[in-house]
């Protein structure tokens, strides 16, 4: 691949501008659906764009008592993680640009960079609210990450590959939603946890800890975290759509499937109230991980009874 194409890939198509605008639009759709479910008009179509632009042109304050380098670098890492992950994903229904054996694992880790950056950002500042938010963010990371990963590995095992492109091709012929319904539900709920959407918004509970780890960020840093989260929303939806909803082989399929998932996610947000952090952890470790494992067991037994495909 020559230099111009790689630059285009990084700055324009799968990653870069396309992903950011896609994220901004999806964020608006999410807010609008949520507002309509709460019987209000909801924001105008350009609202997230205006929010981000305004934050970008606001004054940058580096509060006293922080490591200024870290304070300025963490938002950049938070955005760079999802943007890099996009290169390995079928964003927009196009085949992933880069692909190697085991890129699923790398992608899942790249998607965690945002959360880790958020946690570090909170721990870096002297404010007690951000510290509490950081603790909760990282606690929550440890609770949803394992079930989310297990839920994504279900299709990987079925496809017999750890490569996102190959799983996507396999899912195009087999509707894994019907074969692994529990994994699908866990993956969707795990995505809500990853994005700190209700009911898993304890890390940024406005009524208790101001804005959680983001309390001391204003201006550009907040905008970058915000963009990182929208990008991650798109990537999470893409991942789940390509694994469970029969693959994203064309732009139309991509649009329809991710929007359907987004509709579900917004409904989920409107329906649920915030869980306490200990309830979140309990939910994931007591039930989430367990039922994914039960599903794995069921898959193995089913497969064995058919003459075994997974381990052979």
């Amino acid at each position, binding site marked *: 691949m020559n230099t111009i194409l790689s630059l285009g890939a990084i700055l324009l198509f799968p990653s870069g501008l396309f992903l950011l605008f896609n994220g901004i639009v999806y964020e608006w759709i999410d807010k609008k659906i949520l507002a309509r479910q709460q019987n209000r008009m909801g924001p105008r179509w350009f609202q997230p764009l205006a929010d981000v*632009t305004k934050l970008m042109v*606001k004054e940058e304050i580096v509060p006293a008592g922080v490591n200024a380098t870290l304070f300025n670098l963490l938002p950049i890492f938070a955005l760079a993680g999802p943007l890099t992950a996009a290169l390995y994903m079928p964003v927009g229904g196009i085949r992933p640009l880069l692909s190697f054996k085991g890129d699923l694992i790398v992608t899942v880790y790249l998607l965690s960079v945002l959360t880790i950056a958020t946690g570090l950002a909170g721990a870096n500042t002297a404010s007690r609210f951000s510290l509490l938010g950081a603790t909760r963010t990282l606690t929550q990371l440890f609770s949803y990450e394992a079930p989310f990963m297990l839920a994504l590995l279900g299709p990987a095992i079925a496809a017999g590959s750890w490569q996102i492109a190959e799983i996507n091709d396999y899912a195009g012929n087999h509707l894994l939603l019907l074969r692994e319904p529990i994994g699908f539900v866990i993956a969707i709920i795990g995505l809500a946890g990853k994005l700190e959407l209700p009911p898993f918004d304890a890390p940024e509970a406005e009524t208790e800890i101001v804005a959680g780890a983001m309390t001391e960020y204003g201006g550009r840093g907040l905008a970058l975290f915000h963009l990182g989260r929208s990008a991650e929303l798109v990537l999470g939806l893409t991942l789940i759509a390509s694994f469970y909803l029969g693959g994203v082989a064309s732009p139309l399929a991509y649009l329809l499937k991710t929007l359907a998932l987004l509709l579900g996610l917004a409904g989920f947000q409107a329906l649920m109230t915030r869980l306490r952090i200990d309830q979140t952890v309990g939910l994931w470790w007591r039930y989430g991980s367990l039922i994914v494992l039960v599903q794995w067991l069921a898959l193995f037994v089913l497969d064995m009874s058919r003459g075994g495909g997974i381990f052979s």
Partner: protein
Amino acid sequence: MSVQLDKPWQRILDEVATWARKNSPWAIHYNSGSCNGCDIEILAALTPRYDVERLGVTLHGSPRHADVLICTGPVTRQSADRLRRIYEQMPEPKFVVAVGSCALTGGVFHDGYNCLGGIEKVIPVDVFVPGCPPRPEAIIDGVVKLLQKVDPDRTPARAGSEIVSEKEDTHGSYDRNPATD
């Protein structure tokens, strides 16, 4: 940012920044000694009935995120310091809306031994919304009046441009608008 661009480009950037500021005023709410009447009205303005999110207004907890400080009540001696600190924690450009009679002048508390008077005694105020308490429509009208004041020439930009701060007569800014009634 101290990058100075050519005039037309700078102009376009300023226009974009102003558009964004006008369309995304994030608010923070502080009660510096109010009787809670105005606060209830502010909360009523945030409910689905009035739904200020359609104007881009959302309530935020942290002063670092906010653009508009919505103050209620007279400033008591105890809260003056806190009000000033919240104002100073907000990043530029920032605006202040004083809501209710007490926030304007001290109201019924104006002669109190513990009372400094209106919000303007402590921090500069951009828009005054009179009323005891003002209706949610009046508060939304005050925010809209504030947004009309935001334009590139008047925004205190850090890029070295002059801060033009001639004070507009915004007292009694609550005119009923027949179009929205």
